[in-house]
């Protein structure tokens, strides 16, 4: 069976696979491509037409060159082209959007870059809005994403190593780093993890994230972003990024707990205002995770630490609630989670309005119905609002807030403190690509990570200038 037959057989029952026969001076050629993945105009103008117009092969000084080499050099007007290694390689090219050309009686197959599938344009990332600074976001095409990074770091030390992952999906995965800045062990670690991926398909970076995380935790130990400027900043700090074709999110490792409190525009806004915002985010963290549990502990065990006037108000506020405090708190937390989830999933124009309306109506009705007290609604609403200031901690904080409420309702403040201790133990034993998650706490490893709790001067943060030969100047 010749190669064309084999390809036809393996691609049978696909209506969009096209076989275009072209009669040329050197014999019949077949162009195989997938209709919607290729630029049809390019195929017509720069492949079909030149092939048809071959009357005779042009003379060449190098007589050793094969016919295909001569055709690729002198006939086909496509910028990127080459020979396929085998039928599998040819099929991969076809499925990636590259047409191939097979000449009758010639073993080798030519592939040509003429991709033309629909791609979302470079837009503003919805998940990481900024007040000031670059607004570009990645899209689903790996080459576009690589270009967005390359445009920002014009260095020969910036490396993108490609791998194909997934038996069925054959997805391109690019590992990027800056030679000389990223530790060798870190690069090796990420490469090994990607190479070890034994998957049939990979649709998002999360498949790689799972492989890079080796502990059970609600905390993300792998960073992700939609913003090319953020990826560049991380690469310049010596981290390694992973780009997966088909997703606008790029992951970076190592990723530290402190980074949850850093926002993309922290480096583009006034330093003092940024640090003020960071303090607010820390307050939000404590409000989100600790306040519901403290509320339960104090209002069920430790009345004496509440000022009398407030204490009586609390008691009066709960007078008509039939449920125990911890159950009431859990019900209200669940209601707020439902509202948040509904707000996220609904279309944007009605999602926000729905959240506000349902929050107000549900809160007021719950109080009127005697399901919850006003003070509980206020506490949980405050806690829920705080999540939005640190969106990357939404998952872990939701979980730990419930765990701490459980501990507090069982044992009061001693229980609450034990729960906090448990959370700290979990945090301190986590690592991200071999680095302590609580970096720089508990680690002697070095990384060019200069933005810790408070944002310092940009002249210090941006000091990792690469010198000739990839050496770090700092």
């Amino acid at each position: 069976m010749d190669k064309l037959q084999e390809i036809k057989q393996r691609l049978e029952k696909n209506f969009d696979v096209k076989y275009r026969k072209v009669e040329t001076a050197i014999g019949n050629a077949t162009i195989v491509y997938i209709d919607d993945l290729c630029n049809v105009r390019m195929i017509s103008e720069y492949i079909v037409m030149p092939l048809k117009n071959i009357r005779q092969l042009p003379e060449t000084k190098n007589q050793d060159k094969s016919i295909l080499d001569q055709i690729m050099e002198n006939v086909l007007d496509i910028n990127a082209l080459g020979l396929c290694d085998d039928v599998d390689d040819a099929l991969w090219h076809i499925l990636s959007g590259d047409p191939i050309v097979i000449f009758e009686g010639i073993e080798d197959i030519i592939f040509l870059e003429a991709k033309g599938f629909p791609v979302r344009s470079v837009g503003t990332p919805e998940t990481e809005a900024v007040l000031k600074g670059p607004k570009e976001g990645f899209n689903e095409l790996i080459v576009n994403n690589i270009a967005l990074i390359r445009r920002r770091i014009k260095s020969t030390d910036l490396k993108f190593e490609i791998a194909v992952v997934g038996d069925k999906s054959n997805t391109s995965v690019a590992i990027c780093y800056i030679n000389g800045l990223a530790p060798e062990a870190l690069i090796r670690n990420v490469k090994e993890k990607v190479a070890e991926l034994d998957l049939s398909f990979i649709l998002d970076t999360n498949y790689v994230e799972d492989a890079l995380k080796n502990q059970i935790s609600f905390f993300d130990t792998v960073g992700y972003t939609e913003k090319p400027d953020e990826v560049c900043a991380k690469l310049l700090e010596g981290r390694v990024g992973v780009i997966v074709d088909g997703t606008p999110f790029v992951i970076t490792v190592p990723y530290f707990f402190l980074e949850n409190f850093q926002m993309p525009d922290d480096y583009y806004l006034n330093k003092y205002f940024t640090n003020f915002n960071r303090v607010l985010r820390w307050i939000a963290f404590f409000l989100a995770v600790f306040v519901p549990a403290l509320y339960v502990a104090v209002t069920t065990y430790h009345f004496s630490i509440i000022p009398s006037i407030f204490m009586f108000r609390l008691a009066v506020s709960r007078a008509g609630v039939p449920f125990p405090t911890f159950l009431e708190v859990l019900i209200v937390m669940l209601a707020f989670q439902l509202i948040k989830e509904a707000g996220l999933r609904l279309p944007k124009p009605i999602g926000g309005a729905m959240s506000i309306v349902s929050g107000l109506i549900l809160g007021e009705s719950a109080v009127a119905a005697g399901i919850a007290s006003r003070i509980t609604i206020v506490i949980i609403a405050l806690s829920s609002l705080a999540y939005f200031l640190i969106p990357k901690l939404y998952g872990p904080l939701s979980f730990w807030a419930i765990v701490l409420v459980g501990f507090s309702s069982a044992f009061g403040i001693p229980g609450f403190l034990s729960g906090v201790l448990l959370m700290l133990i979990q945090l301190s034993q986590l690592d991200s690509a071999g680095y302590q998650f609580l970096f720089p706490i508990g680690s002697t490893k070095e990384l060019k990570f200069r933005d810790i709790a408070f944002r310092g001067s940009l002249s210090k943060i941006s000091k990792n200038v690469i010198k000739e030969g990839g050496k770090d100047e700092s």
Partner: protein
Amino acid sequence: MKVNKIIIAIMLLLTPALLSGCFNYNDINKLTFVTSIIFDEEDSDKIIVYVDCIKPYRSSDEGEEKARRIMYKGEGKTAIEALKNVNLISSTRLNYSQNRAYIFTEKAAKSGIEKYLSLINNNQQLSIKPDMFIYSGDISKLLEVSSKDEEYLGQFLEELINRNKTNPKAVSANMNDYLSKVIEEDDSFIVGSLKIKEDEIGEKIELSGGAILKDHKLVSNMNPEDVISYNVLLNNIKDGILEIANPQNDNGLITVEILGTNVESNIEIEDEKIKLIKNVDLKVTIAEAQSELIVNDEILDYIKEETENLMKDYLVSTFDKFKKEELDIFEVKRLLNINYPKFDIESPLLNTNLEVNVKVIIDGSSLIKDIL
């Protein structure tokens, strides 16, 4: 390694259970909060306890959450029995975490309050932080007036004490102070005294002077003027007023306002006689002058001298008054123990004379001369 981790996790989970032994889970709305406790006695040594409470409830008429004040009365042979009997008439559990005052009636105080101390000091639910008072008068009147005027008696008394912390006529003492004092050799202790003040406006609860407890019994009362002297001598005073005659007007008075005081205490022994020395630095300003007052060096010297003399007279007469009653409220024994631990004398208070050195500094805008 894994076994160790499991053991640590179990220990961690058990730790709060051990630590929370003193507390129980209670829903805040299922409790009745006590704001003050009144201890009284009947002739037959029967102990009566009045508990002023706040109870949250949901009004079925208005569909709103509210709180109502409830007064419970319990009787028994002991204080704890009386308190336990209160539970028999209360639908919800009493919680004492918000208790702000222990009030002893004059009768209970005269009979001796030591029988209540064990309960207050050792019961896990009762705190030693609340203020303590002696109430002179009819108990039913106190309950009636407090229910009319103030929502919660305990809260009212706490605010009254906080507001009058710097008032020289007020005495504040809490149960913790008292329990610390009773372990000393001389346990004379002054607590705030409560009375019902009746005038044309109506009846009000008033903080009126102090009551002296010795050997856990009420032995004497202090009028507000004595309280001023007591507060000055123990350096408890931050403000106050003194009145002296206006030399520029026969019928008028000059009011001198105290801006601050500093009192240094010392004790000396001379020929088996004890001398309690109080060096009082008084910073004052001229607050008011009836009729006219032209400020000049002469009048300033006069005010200084008169204030010093007045203060001296006040202090010495108050000291002598309680010396006669053998009530060591000015802590002579304590000072003696600190400065002369080996000096042994019978009735040291009776052998003590007070030497007061008052230094008055006139300050403020009233110093500007040649003005009216």
